[in-house]
C-alpha cells in the first residue's frame, strides 16, 4: 500500500512537470496514421461498395481518432477524472445522431409521398 502510494506520488509529480515519452513512440504512431490514411484512401481507390465500404471507413476513422487522442493528445496518461469529463459528454452525440436519423427518414418519406408523385 505504502509502495503503491509512493509510486502514485512519483507519477503525479512526473505529470506535474509535463509529459515524458520516448520520441520513438511518436514516430511509430505517425507511421501508423500514415498507413491507416493510405488504407482509407484505398477504400475509395478500389471503389469498394456496400457494407464493406462503410465498415472499413468507420474502422480506419476510429483507429486514427483513437491514436491521435490517446497518444498525440496524451489522453492515455491523463488523470481519469479529466478523461471522463471530456469523453463521456461526447456520448450525447450518438443520441443526437439517432434523433436526426429518424427525422431525416420522416422528411424523405414526406418528400417521396407528397412532392414526387410517381417516383
Amino acid at each position: 500500500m505504502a509502495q503503491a502510494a509512493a509510486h502514485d506520488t512519483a507519477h503525479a509529480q512526473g505529470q506535474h512537470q509535463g509529459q515524458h515519452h520516448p520520441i520513438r513512440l511518436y514516430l511509430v504512431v505517425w507511421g501508423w496514421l500514415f498507413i491507416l490514411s493510405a488504407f482509407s484512401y484505398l477504400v475509395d481507390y478500389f471503389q469498394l461498395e456496400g457494407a464493406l465500404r462503410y465498415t472499413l471507413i468507420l474502422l480506419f476513422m476510429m483507429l486514427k481518432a483513437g491514436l491521435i487522442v490517446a497518444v498525440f493528445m496524451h489522453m492515455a496518461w491523463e488523470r481519469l477524472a479529466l478523461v471522463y469529463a471530456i469523453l463521456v459528454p461526447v456520448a450525447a452525440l450518438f443520441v443526437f445522431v439517432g434523433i436526426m436519423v429518424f427525422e431525416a427518414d420522416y422528411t424523405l418519406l414526406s418528400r417521396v409521398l407528397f412532392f414526387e408523385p410517381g417516383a
Partner: protein
Amino acid sequence: MAEAAVTGRAQVYTAQPGLKGVAGDFASDQRAFKNVSWGKAMMWIFLLSDTFVFSCFLIAYMTARMSTTVPWPNASEVFALTIGGVTLPLILIAIMTFVLISSSGTMAMAVNFAYRRDRRKTAILMLVTAILGAAFVGMQAFEWSKLIHEGVRPWGNPWGAAQFGSSFFMITGFHGTHVTFGVIFLLIVARKVWRGDYDTERRGFFTSRRGSYEAVEIMGLYWHFVDLVWVFIFAFFYLW
C-alpha cells in the same frame, strides 16, 4: 490511513484506481482536475465545445443527405484530379490528409522537445508544423476555387443534390478557419519559444502570467484537435 497522515500534501494528489478515484476527484474541495493546470483543463473544455460545433455541422450534413430525393454528387469524381494524363480519384484530399497528419507528427515531437527544454528543436518543429498547416490551407483554397469555377454554389451544383455545396463550404470552411488560426497561434508560440520566454518565465503580454513550456503542449492539443476533426470530415464527407 496512517500513510496518508505521514505523506501529507502529496497524498492529496494520489487517486484511488478506477471510478472511485473519479468520484473522489469530483467530490473534492476546490479543484476537480488534480495535477492538471487550469490552462490545459480549459483548452480541453474548449475542445469539447468545439467538438459539438463540428458535430452539429456533420449531423446537419447527414440529415440533408439522408432526406434528399435527388442523388448526392459522387465525391470520388468531384474531387478527382488529372495529373500527367492520369485521372486519380480524391487525390488532392489524400495529399491534404497526409500533410495534416505530418503536421500533427511534427507538433507531437515539438511538445516532446519542449519538455526536454530544447529551445531550438522545439521552435524549428513548430515552424515546420506551421508551414505544413499553411500548405494545407493553400490546397484548400485551390480546391475551393476549382469547385467554384466548376459551378458549385451553396444553393446548387451541376451534379446533384443542391445541399452538397452548402455542406461542403460550411464544413471545410469552418475547418480551414480553425487551421488558419492554428497557424497564427503556432507562429506566436514558436516565437516565444525561440526568444526563451519559457526558460525565463517571462510574463505573457495578454494574461501577465508566467510563461512555461506547458504552453507548447496546450498549443499542441489544439493542433491535434484540428487534425482529429479532419479525420471525421475525410471519412464522412469525402469517403462516404
